[in-house]
C-alpha cells in the first residue's frame, strides 16, 4: 500500500484553520450570551457545545474549500 505523506506545512495550516473555527465559535457563544442575557460562566460550562460548533464550522469550511479547489482545477485545465 502506498504511504500518504502530509507535509508539515499543510498540518500547520489546518491547525490554524481549526483554531480560527474555534475562535469563531467562541464569538458565537459571546453573542448568544449577550443576546439572551445569560451568565458569562457559560463560556466554560458550554465548552463542549462550542467545540461541536467549531467542528461544524470546520466541516462546512472544508466543503467550501474542496469546492473552490475543484473549480479552480477545472478552470486551470480549460485555460491550459
Amino acid at each position: 500500500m502506498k504511504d500518504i505523506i502530509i507535509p508539515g506545512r499543510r498540518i500547520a495550516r489546518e491547525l490554524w484553520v481549526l483554531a480560527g473555527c474555534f475562535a469563531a465559535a467562541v464569538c458565537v457563544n459571546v453573542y448568544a450570551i449577550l443576546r439572551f442575557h445569560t451568565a458569562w460562566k457559560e463560556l466554560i460550562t458550554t465548552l463542549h457545545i462550542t467545540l461541536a460548533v467549531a467542528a461544524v464550522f470546520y466541516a462546512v469550511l472544508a466543503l467550501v474549500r474542496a469546492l473552490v479547489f475543484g473549480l479552480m482545477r477545472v478552470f486551470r485545465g480549460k485555460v491550459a
Partner: protein
Amino acid sequence: MDSEFSPLASPAPQGRAQRREFLKRLAVVASSSALLADLPWWTPLRAEPVGNSPADRVRLGLIGAGTRGSFLLANLLQTPGVEIAALCDDYPPHLEAALAKVKGARGFSDHRQMLDMPDLDGVLIAVPLFLHAPICLDAFAAGKHVFCEKSLAYSIAECQAIADAHRGSGKVFQIGHQRMFSPVFLRALQLVRDGRIGPITQMRAYWHRNGNWRNPVPASGPDPSPFPSLERRLNWRLYLDYSRGLMTELASHHIQVANWFLDAHPVSCAGYGSINYWKDGREVYDNVNVVYRYANGTQVVYDSLISNRFYGMEVQIMGPEGTIEAETGKIFSENPPPAPGIVQLINGIEHGFFSAVPIGGPSWVPELKKDTKGSYLVQDQSTDDGTAISMAAFANSIRANKPIPGMMEQACRSGVSVLMGHNAMEQQQEIAWPEGFRE
C-alpha cells in the same frame, strides 16, 4: 435540567451483608435530616445495629404465601435478625412452594393453629382483602405483632374494628404501604415540606394497565374451599365478595400517598366506575374515576383502568412553584432556569429554518405539556421501592417492642378513603368521611 434540587443519595441493597450496610446508611440518613427524623416510622431504623445473639432474633410467621407473600418472604430472608418460624396457607401448592424456600419453618393450613405458637413474635398477613380483618383481629387477640398488607380491610366497620383492637394492645402494627419507606417518596415529601413546589394545590394519580388482571386457573386442582371455585380462589380480586377491585388493590397506594402528603383524610368523594371492556363475568369495575375533596380545598383526582397502559402509573403533586412525579422520581420547576444562551441561539436558528410560517393560523400558542426534563429526586434509580426497608422497620420495632406511632392512622385513612371511593361509585353519590371514625 433544573439543577436547584439536589438528589438524595440512596444505595440499592442486594446480598445480606449489603442489606446490613444499607440499613446502617439509612439510619444515618434518618437521623441526619430534620424532616426524616420527624417521620415516626423511621424511628425503628435508627435503632442499634442487629447483633447475632438469640435475643436479637425476631421470630415471624407469614400468613398467605401467594404472589405478595412470596415477595415479602424473599425480603424477610434478606433482613438481618429475622427468623421465619412458620408459614401458613390454605392452598397446598402455595404452602409447599413457600416451605421449600425456608429451612426449618413449620407449615400450617389454619392461621389459628399458627397463632397458638407461643414463641412467635409477629405475623405478616398477605391474604385476600376480605380476610385481612378477621386474621388481624385473631392475631391481636393472640398477642402478636402484626404486619398487614394493604388495603386495611374490606369494610369501614372492619377498619374501625382493627383500629380499636390495636389501640391499647401495645403491639406493633404496620401496613403494607411501602411508599412510606421509599427513599424517593421521602425525598419528595421533604421537598414539599421545604416549600419547593409551594403549597399543594392539586394531586393527580393514575394507574393504567392493559391486561385482564387474571391469574391462570388450572382445569383441576386442590379443593378450593372455603371459596366456591378455583376461579374465585385464584382470581378473588375480580369478585365483590372478596375485594373492592381497583380501588382497594391499586388506588389504595396512591390515596395513601395523597393523605400522607396532605396530612389529612378526605372530607368526601364522588366518582364513577363501570365495566366497559373486560365483560368476562368479573364483578369489579375495570375502570374507575374518583375525586377526593379535602378540608383545605385541595382535590385529589384518581383514575385507573386496565384496557390501556400508555400512561402507566404516576402520582403528580402540583403546586404553583413546581410538580413532583413521585413514581418516576422527578421534580419539575414551574420556572426552570433558562437553557444556555448558545443552546437558545441554536434552537432559534433551527426553528427559523425548519418551522413553517403560519399564515392565517391561530393567534394563540397551544398550552401543551411543558417539555422540561426535571431532575431526579434520588441519585440511584435502582433503589428499593420501600418493601425491604419496611420489613427491616417491622423487625426492628418488634425487637425494640415499640409500636410505630402514626402507622394505624395512615392505614385507616387510606383504607377508609378507598372504600369511600368504592361506595361513591356504587351509590353514584357523594360520600362523606364516616363521622366518628376513630383512627
